């Protein structure tokens, strides 16, 4: 009865520290006291259940879900991969929400002040769900880099934001996917806040197999959520 098993802890060798001084906004927004250990109960091993029923017909095609009078500008890409747990088990029918900038590096968000054009045919938000083997895919436009105020001449590398629930409240993850070979990665305080050995897990691989001939380049990005403990929780 795997439903009754708790989850392995957050692996702090994989995740950034809350306080990462080079990313300046962490200074006033990081907890300063140690996290209090909490034994998992039904409250933690349950969680919101979202899957295919939450995905509308165009949600997984960002080249079409914001189109008003044509196609968005930029390089079409397909992002695909598997969602697994730490034991390599596929996580089926699990929702993935994504959001990103357009090809010019501009978000549709009202608070984005970057002086780059909005694209009337690109929204930048979408969602998809994994199939029975844990595979997901969505089509989009490769996001552009954009400047931000962290330090002089700071630019975020190209990235797509991902949000996943997985099977429980404990497996919740929000992360960012980066692109291979991006020279901005070595300069980005958010990416660099990640422990060095874990950074590669945030960078997609170019995939000819996922590339749709004549249409869109493919990128492979697998996501690993916390796995199950081997022994049942105490009641």
């Amino acid at each position, binding site marked *: 009865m795997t439903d009754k098993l708790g989850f392995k*802890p957050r692996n702090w060798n994989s995740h950034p520290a809350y306080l990462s001084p080079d990313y300046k906004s962490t200074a006033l927004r*990081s907890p300063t006291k140690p996290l209090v250990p909490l034994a998992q109960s039904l409250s933690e091993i349950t969680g919101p259940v979202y899957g295919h029923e939450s995905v509308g017909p165009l949600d997984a095609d960002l080249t079409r879900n914001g189109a008003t009078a044509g196609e968005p500008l930029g390089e079409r890409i397909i992002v695909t991969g598997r969602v697994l747990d730490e034991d390599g088990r596929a996580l089926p029918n699990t929702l993935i929400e994504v959001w990103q900038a357009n090809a010019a590096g501009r*978000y549709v968000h009202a608070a984005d002040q970057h002086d780059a054009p909005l694209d009337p045919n690109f929204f*930048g938000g979408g969602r998809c769900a994994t199939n029975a083997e844990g595979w997901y895919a969505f089509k989009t436009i490769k996001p552009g880099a954009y400047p931000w105020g962290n330090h002089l001449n700071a630019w975020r590398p190209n990235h797509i934001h991902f949000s996943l629930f997985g099977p429980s409240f404990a497996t919740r993850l929000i992360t960012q996917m980066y692109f291979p070979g991006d020279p901005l990665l070595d300069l980005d305080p958010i990416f660099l806040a990640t422990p060095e050995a874990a950074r590669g897990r945030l960078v997609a691989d170019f995939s000819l197999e996922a590339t749709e001939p004549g249409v869109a380049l493919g990128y492979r990005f697998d996501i690993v959520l916390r796995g199950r403990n081997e022994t049942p929780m105490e009641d």
Partner: protein
Amino acid sequence: MTQKQTPSQTIGPFFAYGLTPEQYGYNLTSIAAPDVANKDQAGEHIRIEGQIFDGEGVTVGDAMIEIWQADAAGRYAHPADSRGSNADFTGFGRVGTGTDPERRFFFETIKPGAVGDGQAPHINVIVFMRGMLNHAYTRIYLSDEVEANAADPVLAGIPDHRRGTLIAKRDDSGAGPVYRFDIHMQGADETVFFDL
């Protein structure tokens, strides 16, 4: 085969059109909202509201809060809770702090029942914001549950001077019950955040 966890990254400042689009007026359906319970939902209807304060006491206007709770009978809408919850109560809510002039978060929901494992009624909370590379877990306990709170094993493990940061204060002076729950990221009143 053993796999390693994908690292967490910040939600950033621009999540609203992707994660809370309807609340912010963007043209995408939301999967979840600040309204967690419809009018007919069984249980006591309550409002939860609060503000998030950074290390200088400034309210945070670009955070997202998620809540996960049991229904009035203490049941979670999830396969691991085999008792089954009210059919149309998901128990999940999501809100951004960027639409209220005072940067409040707010949920319209029902008061959760005790799950039945010795814990007092509570609401599970995740905090996300720009400047946080990992989300933070906390819990909302309810100030009117005096006896249950006194017997709660999680609250019992927290030093006296910090326990109050987890207890939302009930206010019955308005049209309906409101629980006030502020979140302090740092300082003397720093909220208890959990590693779970």
